[in-house]
């Protein structure tokens, strides 16, 4: 799970990119390192933008189309920045049986955003996960990296409203 994105101060740009380069160097800048490099980009920047994809493509000597193809193939990679807070709703079978769908509907009704969307004020992003592996706590959500289990739609909305903006 990656950290929520913060607007990048430009002065630190080179420092940040170095974190990605370290990972690519570990694999000798070979094309095999593409997925690891994208993980590093997302961990550093919070999401993967076109600029980063171009730089990774050059560094690993891969066509940009391949980098884009891989970045969009895997669910874990995000190509858009996330809001200040993220609410990941687990859609695993156990959570689904116990009402994850109702949670999504409630969030859509309350905040007007669906899976993968962010509120216009960048306050909240709602996402779904295939399974967070906390089936014993179903239904579960991950609010800003913290797993909350046995939780109903109303409680979630309350938790989100309590988050500072």
């Amino acid at each position, binding site marked *: *799970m990656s950290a929520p994105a913060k607007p990048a101060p430009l002065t630190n740009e080179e420092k940040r990119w170095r974190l990605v380069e370290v990972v690519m160097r570990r694999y000798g800048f*070979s*094309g*095999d*390192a*593409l*997925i*690891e490099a*994208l*993980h590093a980009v997302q961990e550093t920047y919070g999401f993967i933008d076109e600029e980063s994809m171009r730089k990774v493509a050059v560094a690993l000597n891969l066509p940009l189309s*391949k980098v884009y*193809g*891989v970045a969009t*193939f*895997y*669910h*874990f*990679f995000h190509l858009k920045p996330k809001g200040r807070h993220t609410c990941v709703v687990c*859609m*695993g*079978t*156990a959570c*689904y*049986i*116990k009402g994850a769908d109702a949670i999504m509907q409630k969030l859509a009704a309350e905040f007007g955003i669906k899976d993968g969307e962010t509120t216009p004020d960048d306050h909240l992003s709602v996402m779904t*996960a*295939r*399974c*967070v*592996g*906390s*089936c*014993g*706590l*179903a239904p*579960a959500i991950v609010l800003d990296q*913290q*797993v*909350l*289990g046995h939780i109903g739609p109303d409680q979630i909305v309350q938790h989100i409203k309590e988050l500072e903006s």
Partner: protein
Amino acid sequence: MTPEALQEVAKAEQDALAKQPQRIGVCTAAGCLSCKSGDVLKNLQTALDRRADVPYKAVGVGCMGLCARGPLVSVEPQGLLYENITTADIPALVDSLAAKPMKEKQSDLGMPFFKRQIKVVLDQFDKIQPERLESYLAHGGYEALMNCVAHRSPGDILDMVKRSGLRGRGGGGYPTGLKWETVAKARGDRKFVICNADEGDPGAFMDRSVLECAPHRILEGMAIAGYAIGASAGYLYVRAEYPLAVQRLKLAIRQAEKFGLLGDHICGSSFSFKVEIRLGAGAFVCGEETALIASIEGRRGQPRPRPPYPAEKGLWGFPTLINNVETFANIPAILVKTPEWFASMGTEQSKGTKVFALAGKIQNTGLIEVPMGISLREIVLEMGGGAPEGHTIKAVQTGGPSGGCIPAEHFDISVDYESLRKMGSIMGSGGMIVMDETSSMVDVARFFMEFCKSESCGKCVPCRVGTPQLYELIERIRARRGTRRDIARMESLCEMVRTTSLCGLGQTAPNPLLSTLKYFRHEYEELLVDEPEETRT
């Protein structure tokens, strides 16, 4: 380190355990951690430090199974298990150590959930400290590996794994010994071992628990496999969605390298084996061997036609052995306790034990390990404690999106690879989702079809085009717009997708739909509308 030096480390740890038998074990697996067991452990340690009159020591241990009632805390040497322990309970817990147990928080260890289990993969999870190699060593860890490199030939090990009758625990159930032998015989300059820890089935968390609680057991299994097939490098392909597992595996690899149990010349022998972690990025199709290999090579996780099988041409074209987490975790025990001991458990065709993750509408959610051949009734109704108060169980879904639903009237079947397949489901990796009368089976089938549709990698047409069509058909029926013809259409399309898809994902995608149609057809039929004559000519 030499085996003697390692034995000394183990001995020192065992002595420390004997000197300090008063221990409180707090579960530090993901389930309990998300109920704040980390805080419980920290506060408990502080509280115990302050109380010189209480000789107990608090340590973080592995999963104790009953995830629904976490955080779980065990007390040794009394052998007590407490459930739902919060930081507020700590003063009472510390006071109770010298007095009587806290009755109201105590788990009944005599209940079937605990009594019926036989632990091989989950063995001693309540004692081993996941983040310390010394602790694993003291509980008999790495004994099998040390013995292998010192006294056994690769052929011996292949023979032992074959005799054990172990079959792949990832879902397919292919005989492990046979797979190992094929890779061992294959010709290649290099060979690789891959551990598939990309637990993609929604509703399954067995592998997560094993990765988090006994990372060394998996490394040991992989190293033994490497020795047996002649590989010197291994990859652990693990989900990025399991950050704790990744962190503990990284730590375990570093520790094992430091102790000379991974790396060059393991235990002073001529055998060298390195393990690297590769992060998955959320693609269910990467559970398919060839797709997983593509992903490790940094490409999109798309499968390719087989043959050639990875055993001949796998990672970078070299012979490659791929096994699931649970398969590797069984290996050390098979070698130490003999293959015959392992084969004495289970049924004729399915030997040993299997870990299941019980979840859904059931009392005792959690992890269990049971011998193969146990009935579904025993697992769901007795161990699982049945449905929550006031409800009745309708069906169990096994095998995730590739499996099927088994209705309650068939709960007497034996849980093994063949019986489950006969019922139209599969063993799968071990997720069991229980549904009660409030769950609509049409809805469940729709859920899985939505999953397969969005997880289809897009390479072959039957799966890429077929699964969205199936989804549309279910959706139409669910919205009360479907007719009898739509069911017939669905059935023929299922058959087409099943028989013509390239990989396991597509071939098994119709299973949830077909099994619910088979056992719960009336639920579909209740939603049908009459054929509008004029539009359907």
